[in-house]
Structure formats: structure tokens, C-alpha cells
């Protein structure tokens, strides 16, 4: 799966989890700049990502991401 495909799938998952259809993500998007994506929603988003991709994150991986690009890279290493 290419990074663009991962990003597209992530965008879909995050729109679904945060219940906001107009979210647009790119590699440098920060969670704090997306409405509703706070630390509480972050856990929900990440477990949603785990389920959709059939992968599993470490707790420390979930809490130490800096931006969407890092999330894409992390997902890529797990596939």
C-alpha cells in the first residue's frame, strides 16, 4: 500500500471516528489543528486505525506521534 493510499484510508477512518465529513488531512497535519481531535478522541482514532488496518500499536507509539505523516509511516511499518 502506498503512502497516499494509507493517507486516504486514514482520512476516511478519522472522518468516521470524529463524525466530521469535511476533514482534510495531509502529511503535516497536526491533531491539534483538526476540530474534535483532542487527546480523548485520539485513543478512539488510533484503535479505529488498528481495526481498519488489522494492526496493533504499542501504547507508547499511540502517545508519541507528532503529525499525520508519522502516523502514516507507523502504519506502513506495521503492514
Amino acid at each position, binding site marked *: 500500500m502506498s503512502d497516499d493510499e494509507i493517507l486516504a484510508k486514514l482520512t476516511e477512518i478519522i472522518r468516521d471516528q470524529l*463524525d466530521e465529513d469535511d476533514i482534510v488531512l495531509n502529511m503535516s497535519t497536526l491533531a*491539534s489543528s483538526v476540530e*474534535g481531535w*483532542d*487527546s*480523548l478522541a485520539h*485513543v*478512539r482514532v*488510533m*484503535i479505529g486505525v*488498528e*481495526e481498519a488496518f488489522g494492526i496493533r500499536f*504499542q*501504547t*507508547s*507509539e*499511540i*502517545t*508519541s506521534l507528532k503529525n499525520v505523516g508519522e502516523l502514516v509511516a507507523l502504519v506502513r511499518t506495521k503492514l
Partner: protein
Amino acid sequence: MSLVYPIFLFAFLPIFLALFALGGRIGGPRGALLVLVASSLLFTASQGLGFLIATTISLAINYALLMAIIRARIGGRWGRAMLAVGIVFNLALLVLAKYSVWLQWMPGIGPLSLGLSVAIPTTLSFLTFQRSVALLDAFTACKATALGLQSPPKGERPSRADPPLRYLGFASMFPNLMIGPIAYLTEILPQIARRSFGKLRAIDISIGLTLLIVGMFKKFFLADALGEDWVDPVYLDVARTGATTSARAAGALAAYYVQLYFDFSGYSDMAIGVARMIGVRLPMNFDSPLRATGIIDFYRRWHMTLTRVISRFLFSPLSIAGTRYAARWRLKGIAAKLPSLWLPLIINFTVIGLWHGPRLTFVVFGLIHGTWYVIETEFRSARWWKKKRKTIPEWRRKLAGAIIAIPLLVLTFALFRSPTLAVFVDILQSLGSTATVPQGAVLPFDKMSVIRLVLSFAIAGLAPNVYEMLGRYRPAIRSFVNPSTTPRWFAFKWRPNIIWAGLLFALAMLAMHEMATVTPFVYQVY
């Protein structure tokens, strides 16, 4: 010794700064770091022999584990085991020294705990968290931490002394040793490892001094005096007679709201200021929390370094486990919310409450804040509110939020101040009392104390905080980015000029005028 004592401000600090600069001149960054470590150990020793021994043993064990974690395979079992050992050791020491009241019935552990609590009267809470989270940093950011510990300052050769010296510099650093702010290893290492560390800069001294003076003013001129005039006498009434008048109870509630903030944030400003004098930027701890627009907003502005540590250690792991559990069993609605969000939040806040000490009032404080947080979270994420909120102007939403939040915060702060639940109930009941001054009560308030209370609320409610005023000089590391709530006409900006120097001089004089009667920081006991 603590940052509030004249011996610290007028002897320890200036001598330290001179030696630090000298160390930097002779030995470069390493020389300056050596002076910092030596001074920090001296500062540690001034807290008593028990404290010195306990924290030194803790330093040695934490350093050994940190290095083992860095050398282990990234994310591997060995590193994970070392991390667990370190966190268990740190927390065990803290719990034994702090909660002996609740542990004394246990055979073996009871006497040990009692002995430790007598030997270490000063708090280990803050350094326990700072050292534990450093192990976690080393585990999650293995390479960066190793590099930060080992890479020599530019243009110099590597030295085997660097890692232990830098770790000691971080973990024993005196400005934030006793009452925080709790810093991350990954925040401090690059600062003490840089080439220019050890050179005092005029601008750092000015900013550091500004923070120190603002902190002193908040602590001495506002917090201490508010406590003496408004809060302590009323709690004394209640302790003696079980009641007070409604006006005095209301005065005490209002005054304690600002007292606790000015006391603790004043201390944090002082700690951040002292560190800034030697060019080290610590994380910010308070961001005008008393005008929060809800409990979520409040915790992004109040004791921010504790919020972020607890949510990293406790809330996130709990919530992750709960969310996975809910996903595995395909739970929906409340059945899913309970393990994934509600319980983790309530546990999180109960632990924050308990962290302040073994008192039932702290547990109730945590439970109330946890439940409140759950309710607000659910309200904000409800579908009808998401639609509705777009139709209400932002200022009206914020105002309504503050009107709901502030009275509740005032009440829960009083819970925090009350030694027992019975005292808290007495204070609340006194609010509705029709009695005049009770027998044996301390004298009523004078004009100056009323002015001081009004001034305190004006500052807490309208003035920019010192980090906003110093904004362009990046006075501290921000862990949460909050929108400013300062009205535009009050958004003064600090400049290194004669007007600000004069103003700060006046604040320093006012603070020193009150300093004759130093009371320790409210937070010193936690």
C-alpha cells in the same frame, strides 16, 4: 531551603550565578553543568539528610536503568522490563514515604513506611514524576535520548562524563526539584548539551528576573496575605466553633480561589525564572486557569505539567485498554463509553486528587472533577450540541461556560483547603447562616485586605499572564496551546526597557515588604 527564603534569593542564587558563569568561562558547557549539579546537590542536602540519601539512591538507580533502556533493543522486552522496574521503584518510594497513614497497618511495610515518612518530610512527588517520565522518554525516544546524553558540544571531543553529568543536571536541577514544573528529559537535554550553555546572556537574566519578580509578587504580596486575612481566620473559626458567618465563609471561598492560584503559579514562575537565568527553558505550568470556560479548558491551563504526565502514564494506557476491550466485544453506547472513556477519566482524576496526599477530601475532589469532566466531554460531543453551537457566537458560549465553571471550581477548591469533609460541610452550611460574628472569632477584615482581594480578582480575571506578556521571548515550553482570554486593551507586552524595569522594581519592593512573614508554599506539602 526553598526558592522563597531570603537566604536563597539573596545568597544562594547570586553566588550560584557567579560560579556558573565562572564554570562556563573556565570549563565551557561541562564546567557550567558541573557547577549546576554541585549546587543542586547542595540545595538537595539543605532539605535534610533523609531527603538527600533517598534522592541520591534514586538518582543512581534511575541513571543505571536509563542507560540500560537506551542500550536495549528499541521497544524490546529487556528495555520494557527495565522501564517497569524503574517506575515501580520510583512509585514505591513515593507511596511509602507519603501514604504511611494508610499503610501503617501492613506488617513489615507499615513500619518501613512510617520510618521513611519521618526521615523524608519534604515531598518526593515532583521528582518522582520527573525521573519516571525520563525513563519513559528513554524507552519511546531511545535514539534521541542516547544522542542527547552522549553527543559532545559542537567542536569538542566526546567525553564519558557527559551522560552522567547531563542526567544529574536534568534530574537534580534545583529550580524545579521541589515543586516542579515537571520537565521531560527530551526537553532539557538539548538545552544543557548545547555549545553556548554556561554563558550568561543579559536577555536571559532580564527575562528570568522578570519571571522571578512576578512570581514573588504573586506569592508574597497576593497569596500569602490573602491567606492570612481572608482564609486562615475563617478556617480557624470553623475549627473552634464549627461555624462562621455567611459573609466570612463567602470571603474565604472567594479568597482561597485566588490564593491557591497565586501561590502555586507564583512558585512556578519563580522556578521557571531561575532556570531561565542560566538559559534553560522549563515547561509552562499555568495559563490563566481561573477564567476557564469549563473543566476541560481548566485542566489545559492549571498545573499543565501534571496534567500531561498523568494523562501520558495513566489515562492513555487505561483508555487504550478500555477502547480495545470495547472493540473486541463489539460494545456500543454506554457499555463502550464506560471502559474506554468514563472509567479511565474518573480513575485519572481520583489519582490526581490522591497525589496531593492521603486525605478523603482529595479523593472527593478527584471524583467530582472526574465526573464533571465526563459530563462535559459527553455534552461537547453530543450531536445536537455540535449543531447548536454553530448558531451561538463564540463569546457567548465562552461566557456561559465560565459562569457555570467558576462557581463549581471555587467550591471544589474549598474542598481542597478543608482538612476534613466535616469542615468543608461546616463552611458550606455557614454560607446560609444568619449569625453575626461568632464568639471567639478573629477580627473582621480591614480596608487593605478588601483592596487586595479585589486586585487579585482583577489580575486573575483580566490581566495577561506573564507568559503572554513575555510572549515574543518564548519564556517557557508550551505543552498545550490555549487561545488567549485576555481582553485586547489589557494585552500588555513586556519590553526590556526602563518603564518595565521600574514597574518590576516596584513589584519587587511590594513583595519584599511582605516577605518578613514567609509562609511555605501551599504545594510544598504535596
